[in-house]
């Protein structure tokens, strides 16, 4: 049935003026009479504690004819025949109502998010590192993201983020999460963004800027750190929120594990060749209006210069949020900062650098927000060339500011300007105007 027909069928059913409704009501009355007969003949009437049925409840299912032995068989047969004839006539006249069709409710919750941006860069060659950043002058399709989720069974839930871009389809995430492990444990398995730091596990939809902090692109790759693998997390029994996360993921991927094996498809020789990520996340509710979230992370694994050469990335993140809920207010102010300290063993040397960002977001009106961000990244301090970014010989800084208009929680329009200051070349201006819209199932957002 086409949606339009289904809609028409459903709405006509709810319209008290149509014949359809009248005949349904008379049918309900007839069956109610039979039901009363049955109940009084078999059981003592009991006061119902159930609330009355919804007036707009789904169509009454066709009851199986069940002649009451205590009743009048002739009358029952006549009633059943009349009702069957009515039902047949109705079925001819009207398609069956739209819902519920058994099975359809088992479909996963699906939503689509579209991000498009107009961009202008002050230099022909810019240094954007995010895979979904606007990358060229003019119009950019940042992404079309399909988010899917549903319980698998009582033990697992399934989530996936599939991105349709200019160059094809990409499975960003697809994983199972356990729901019923004992001792406050939870396992995720599949392909997922590692829970390193604060911004890495999130998607563009959750960001306050059009682009990604360059630290993520520099250290992990354009897509953020992810891979096929498995993760175990434990909500500790401490009186405050303290969660410990350990994951093992594939160290390969230019856009997802660039400081590890990256684009080089080196084989795994020992189990230690996987990327291991450990994170501790702690939260304190300072007051109903003030929240503080802090994390420490470590990602470690072999790098592209050889199996014996390892990369360690140490991370610290802080998120402070002020959102008054003890009085009527639409204000939100948040501060978010992250530092990534990377140590890479290379033949006969050790490359050490630090990158990070700090940003402030202020929702100053119900539909308006503004944000400012400072990005920084030091050069790898060995004096020689960095095998990943040979030109990165001096510190780089970038300042960005954005203003966002939110018509509803399902759409946003964002203007952003930034000035990139790589120490090794001239500064780069960039201006973005981005639109995001989402349709489908209403996503639930983590803090």
């Amino acid at each position, binding site marked *: 049935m086409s949606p339009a027909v289904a809609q028409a069928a459903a709405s006509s059913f709810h319209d008290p003026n149509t014949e359809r409704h009248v005949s349904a009501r008379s049918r309900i009355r007839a069956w109610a009479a039979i039901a009363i007969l049955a109940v009084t003949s078999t059981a003592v009437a009991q006061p119902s504690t159930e609330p009355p049925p919804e007036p707009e409840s789904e169509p009454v299912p066709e009851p199986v004819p069940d002649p009451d032995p205590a009743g009048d068989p002739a009358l029952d047969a006549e009633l059943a025949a009349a009702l069957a004839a009515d039902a047949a006539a109705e079925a001819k006249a009207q398609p069956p109502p739209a819902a519920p069709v058994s099975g359809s409710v088992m479909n996963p919750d699906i939503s689509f998010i579209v991000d498009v941006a107009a961009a202008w860069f002050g230099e022909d060659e810019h240094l954007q590192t995010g895979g979904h950043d606007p990358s060229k002058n003019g119009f950019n399709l940042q992404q079309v993201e399909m988010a899917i989720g549903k319980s698998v069974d009582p033990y697992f839930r399934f989530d996936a983020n599939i991105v349709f871009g200019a160059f094809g389809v990409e499975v960003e995430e697809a994983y199972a999460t356990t729901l019923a492990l004992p001792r406050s444990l939870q396992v995720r398995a599949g392909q997922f963004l590692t829970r390193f730091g604060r911004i890495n596990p999130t998607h563009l939809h959750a960001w306050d800027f059009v682009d990604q902090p360059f630290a993520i692109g520099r250290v992990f790759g354009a897509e953020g750190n992810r891979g096929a693998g498995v993760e175990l997390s434990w909500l500790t029994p401490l009186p405050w929120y303290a969660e410990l996360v350990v994951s093992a993921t594939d160290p390969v991927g230019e856009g997802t594990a660039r400081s590890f094996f990256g684009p080089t498809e080196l084989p795994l020789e020992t189990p230690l060749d996987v990327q291991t990520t450990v994170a501790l996340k702690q939260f304190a509710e300072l007051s109903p209006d003030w929240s503080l979230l802090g994390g420490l992370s470590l990602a470690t694994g072999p790098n592209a210069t050889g199996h014996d050469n390892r990369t360690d990335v140490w991370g610290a993140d802080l998120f402070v949020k002020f959102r008054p809920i003890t009085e*009527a207010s639409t204000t939100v102010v948040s501060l978010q900062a992250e530092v990534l300290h990377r140590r890479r063993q290379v033949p006969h040397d050790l490359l050490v650098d630090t990158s990070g960002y700090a940003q402030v977001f202020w929702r100053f009106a119900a539909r308006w927000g503004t944000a400012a961000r400072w990005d920084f990244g030091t050069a790898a301090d060995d004096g020689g060339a960095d095998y990943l970014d040979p030109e990165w010989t001096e510190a780089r800084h970038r300042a960005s500011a954005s203003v966002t208009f939110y018509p509803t929680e399902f759409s946003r329009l964002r203007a952003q300007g930034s000035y990139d200051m790589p120490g090794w070349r001239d500064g780069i201006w960039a201006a973005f105007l981005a639109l995001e819209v989402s349709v489908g199932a209403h996503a639930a957002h983590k803090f």
Partner: protein
Amino acid sequence: MRKLLPIVPLVALAALATVAAAPPAVADVKVVATVPSLAAIAKEVGGKHVSVTAISLPTQDAHFVDAKPSLVLKLNKADALLAIGADLEIGWLPALQTQARNPRILSSGAGYLECAAHVTLRDRPAVADRAQGDVHAAGNPHFLYDPRAAAACARAIAAHFARLDGKRAKAYQANLARFLAALDGARARWEKHLAAHRGAPVITYHRSLTYLLDWLGLVEVATIEPKPGIPPTASHVAAVIDLGKAKAVKAVAQEAYYPDKTCALVARKIPAAVVRIPGGADVARGQSYIQHMDEVVNSLAAGLK
């Protein structure tokens, strides 16, 4: 061996912390309710056998609650989760349920109760389309302003507690009977208090007072929001003011958590009284559901005078 020694005090410390965090010996049923009025009703039904926490505050719009990790912790330890349902909590509760690592409070779990399933919902849209604003496909979830819906929820909660904690089923039933009797008495009082205003036109901010107005026989002639969740526009507000004048509206009502400047403006222009409806029972300060509804009814009565 010597090198291992520092581990001993660490382990002891961890063990201490675990013991300190362990639940008290009294086997209360730990209940988490998504909104404060639901928590207040659960307290009436559960009495001394349950400990009830509300996730949101009466000053907070329950559509937009932050899924704070501290709430994950509460749900991790909960035996029961009481939700309104009808998509009121859809933007945050599922994230908390998944993170809580507690199968009891999952929507499929034995501890989960969705009250919307026990109430006749109004405002169910014929077409679920967000072009109509932030509509709830299942119906309007703001039903706790109708004491008859509150009674239906109380019955459902009593049955739920009896399933979870069968030994005290009689106690829950007795608490329920006591609460329902008190609520019936209060309802008669509230209805009498506002009986003179039946049919009076009222303007509201959001379509969240529908159940309250329908129960009391008041008529919602317009909402200041042009569509649910869409902030008022100048032209719409002007039309609402004209309508308010034409219908001689006496009260402009809104929940305390909505911005009140536009309401105040509309009320001044008509002229009418602004009625601020508390968003829920202030359970943190020990307010009961009946005391909360006393406030609601009194503020409406004051506005309609």
